[in-house]
């Protein structure tokens, strides 16, 4: 894939990745629903994935794409664990509000 469609501009894809990442970050901070917060981390992952593949394209190797495989792995593992935790927390407090667990701050 080296040299393939090189007319595409790396910066444009970095732009998209950065926007997705920033949106995920903002969403993670502003949303109070635990599930949506984790969904926003997935959004950040998306930004990273786009960036990684864009860099892989730019450098003409596949290391970025290989790395995306691991990102997907982590995302899947994170989703499984986080959602299990969320379900557990929901069963305790009957709410998805992150503020309900504010006492974890100590």
């Amino acid at each position, binding site marked *: 894939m080296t040299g393939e469609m090189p007319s595409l501009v790396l910066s444009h*894809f970095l732009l998209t990745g950065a*926007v997705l990442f920033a949106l995920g*970050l903002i969403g993670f*901070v502003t949303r109070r629903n635990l599930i949506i917060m*984790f969904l926003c981390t997935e959004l950040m992952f998306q930004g990273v994935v786009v960036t990684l593949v864009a860099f892989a394209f730019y450098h003409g190797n596949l290391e970025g794409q290989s790395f995306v495989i691991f990102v997907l792995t982590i995302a899947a593992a994170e989703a499984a664990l986080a959602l299990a935790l969320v379900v557990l927390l929901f069963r305790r407090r009957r709410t998805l509000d992150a503020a309900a667990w504010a006492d974890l701050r100590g």
Partner: protein
Amino acid sequence: MAIGLPRKQESPLAIPPEASFRSACHVAAADRLRVTGCPVCKAAGRVLSSAPNGRRAGTDGGRLSRTTPRFPPLFARQGMGHVSSFSLFAATVLGAIALLMMMPRPGGVALRRIGAVLGAATLGGFWLWLARFLPDLGANATPFAYYYVFSAIAIIGGVRVITHTRPVYSPLWFVMVILASAGLLLVLAAEFIAFALVIIYGGAILVTYVFVIMLASQATEASDDSTAPAYDRIAREPLAATVVGFLLLAMLLHMATIERPSSLERLEDRPEARLRVVADSDSIIELTTLPRRAPARVLERLRPEDREHLAAEFEPASPVKPLAALLSELGDDDEADDGPDADDVATDLLEAWEEAGRTAAEYEDELPHTARRAVAETLLEAVEQRFSAYLDRPLEPAERARLAKAIADHRRVDNIERIGLDLFEGNPLGLELAGVILLVALIGAVLIARQRVTDETGAGG
């Protein structure tokens, strides 16, 4: 007009205003400069010569006007120096305001609509502004149009994910983000990742999310947002979050749009090195499968004197050496003497190689895969012809097969194969670790979820 260097602070006015970004960058490329700032757009373009004496650095006005770029401007410079910082930051600020207005808040429906309109206008305006460069791309504009479409969908989907007040809709919008990202990855020729993304995210992870949301959400009237729980209707610290997020975004965009040499130019900085690599390589097909990097193309963009020098020094050797070696092997039983004929053979093979390059040029407007395939086929055919002419007899099937194999050995394998090879040859340990992580996550999820919580339902802590 050779302008002396070093000149780290040059007025942007030193460049003719009509000089297109493309021309300037091509001149810069041709002069083998390392341009760390676009000379046209960025004030005080930092034109640094990689040559120690910097004698070649110059932006000749005459050269600017007569340079006929073979490549679209965005090709020449894989950066967005043409995107002035002002536009970027203006778009960022407008987007931040729009997102802030769109944040969930009690009773702010009108404001949220205004925010949506403002955000759409910002995105559309920015896209239109970027799209001014589309015509310059020529035939390469098609995949780029896809970029704009998919990128817009992804960004809109992302905004909806974080602003929607109904939790069920956020994962659905996230599916849109996934699909659009997959489209972007397809544009980037990462087919495997694109489909893996759709399958794993859209098919597995998001389904889990929707399932958990439906499992854990409280009952909400379908038509009335106000019955939704407050933590879905009211954002937490929207102002601070938006400001911080968009500050981060502005910084990221600033970094992302810094000028960096394209892959091609990184080679062109030191064409000798590239050509030497090529000459030493035992892979001729690597050359032909990378038609845009073919030395002929690189040479084309050099100054004439450099071109002659390099051509004399490297070109005959570059594509020919591995084939000539193969040829001498094949011709072992032939009466032809390798020594005196080597030059002729080399010339012949060079012609074949250039022919393949011309074929690549014909297909330049097509999809790269097409061009690649055409080049490989042309080359195989031409090489076979040359070989049989050299041996003065038609190639035997065994020889033909051997030739094809020698070429095919270096042919581009497709994306999935390459990722597989890369994973299993390059990162076997990482792959194992990923498997272990998944296993641990599986066990952990089961362990967490099967704990029975019988007490304190609804009891706040």
